[in-house]
């Protein structure tokens, strides 16, 4: 059996093919324009950033050499003694790592509580006054845009060397970053519980406590854990500017070319960060699973 395939007249076909070719060509032109812009920007940035491939290829051998020199003396026969020599400062480093974790924890908790207090003021669905929302948001923005290590530099001058400036710097940055994420969560909540409590005569604090908080708590906890993970990395380098933790020993080892110390400390930091990542990811998956079943 034959079925007739409808066929356009030749002129119409050509017209359609022409349209198609034009559309494809326009897309190609846009892509090429984008690529050209990218290339121009790359060259401008390379000029500005003093990129020198000659210097790179000339000195690249130093990069693997750096890692090679970090490798400890290690023989199978004396493995235990070699290991002990490599990690000779283990008790001190573990204490400093503990300090680093505590700096991250105290900073995250302080910043998180501040963010918790401020996020409701930055949510347009809970606060009618646009001025309050605007001011709170700009404040949070300032807190998170200034890098924490800059805060730490200033705080070291104000409070003296030690973990205190590190904790404060992390707390401020965390307040800004979490405050924004918390406020976004609050703005996406179901408005019915809020209306219900407002309708039965609840005050603003009661609306927040019984209408908003139960809906957002698991999300908040998940974001706070993620921030804790980030802050552990941040706290590890706080010591670079004298704000406590393991960073102090690391930068000293780098500056004084104690290569095996560098590798030992780096390995400890990486192991800690990975462990924390693993644990928080587990907990976060459970928290996210809770969402929806939560009242």
């Amino acid at each position, binding site marked *: 059996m034959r079925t007739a395939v409808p066929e356009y007249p030749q002129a119409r076909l050509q017209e359609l093919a022409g349209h198609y070719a034009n559309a494809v060509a326009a897309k190609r032109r846009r892509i090429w324009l984008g690529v050209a812009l990218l290339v121009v920007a790359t060259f401008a*940035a390379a000029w500005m*950033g003093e990129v020198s491939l000659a210097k790179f290829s000339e000195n690249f051998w130093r*990069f693997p050499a750096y890692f090679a020199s970090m490798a400890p003396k290690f023989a199978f026969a004396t493995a235990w003694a070699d290991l002990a020599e490599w990690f000779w400062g283990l008790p001190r480093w573990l204490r400093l790592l*503990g300090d680093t974790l505590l700096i991250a924890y105290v900073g995250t908790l302080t910043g998180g509580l501040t963010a918790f207090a401020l996020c409701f003021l930055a949510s347009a669905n809970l606060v009618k006054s646009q001025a309050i929302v605007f001011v709170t948001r700009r404040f949070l923005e300032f807190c998170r845009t200034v*890098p924490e*290590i*800059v805060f730490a*530099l200033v705080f070291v001058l104000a409070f003296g060397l030690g973990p*205190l400036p590190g904790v404060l710097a992390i707390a401020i940055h965390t307040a800004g970053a979490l405050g924004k994420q918390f406020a976004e969560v609050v703005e996406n909540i179901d408005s019915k519980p809020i209306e219900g409590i407002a309708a*039965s005569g609840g005050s603003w604090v009661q609306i927040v406590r019984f209408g908003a908080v139960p809906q957002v708590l698991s999300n908040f906890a998940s974001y706070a854990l993620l921030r804790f993970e980030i802050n552990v990395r941040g706290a590890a380098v706080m010591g670079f500017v004298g704000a406590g933790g393991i960073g102090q020993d690391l930068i000293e080892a780098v500056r004084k070319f104690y290569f095996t110390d560098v590798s030992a400390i780096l390995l400890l930091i990486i192991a800690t960060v990975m462990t924390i990542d693993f644990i928080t990811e587990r907990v976060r998956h459970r928290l996210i699973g809770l969402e929806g079943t939560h009242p």
Partner: protein
Amino acid sequence: MKSLQFENQATIAERYPELFRTDWRQRSKIIIGLGAAVALFAYGIYQLDIPLNRLSDGMLRLGSFLQLMVPPDPGSWSRALIYLHALGETLSIAFLGTLGGALLALPFSLLAARNVVANRIIHFLARRSLDTIRGVDTLIWALIWVGVVGLGPFAGILAVICSDFGSFGKLFSEAIEAADKKPVEGVQSAGGHHLHGVRFGLLPQVIPILLSQVLYYFESNTRSATIIGIVGAGGIGLQLAEQIRVLEWQRVSFLILLILITVSAIDWISGKLRFAIIGRRAIA
């Protein structure tokens, strides 16, 4: 806080006792959790030896710093030009670092994606090495590269490339694993090679997502490139750290203002671009 009261509260409570009973098991869990958090906080304060009495002194000193910061003032025109040049370096570090990291991470992330390379061992090794690279902070990479290519923004670019390589590798491979496998199967069933499946079935799906992730990282790298100068890897951080150390507070506030303006400008631009590329989709 005044609790909600109704006139017939007693009758309601009598009629639905299970709603008003205190669930002690639930409550004790919460109390124990909160207690542990507070105890750890107190232990942290004690262990870190945080001098709470120095807090008020420090706040006063901080207040005087803030007073000295206004008005922001670079000092002279030539100095302002130096700062703008440093800002240009910072932007170059962020741009080239993000670009380089993304270009290097793309082929590697294919290796780390389970649906492209089915070999378990390769997958595991690729993932773990990316995790290791990500475990090292950008500042530490900068320290290492300063030792290799010397002081200056080039070391900063290489540092950002390294740390972004780790992050992009993870993000890209996750995006690739989340892609729909039907187009790939379609290409293969029409006689395409495995690589054809990747090129025509997989990449068109993931490229917009990857681009938006790259743009997002460009924003965040602008922030981290502002501080990389603290260890000598070029950019505005070098100037900032120097001016803080010599207590030139007006210049410090000028530099911070410059950073704030640049970061929000970059945020705005890349937000527009991201919107143009993928619309209002959240990035995973």
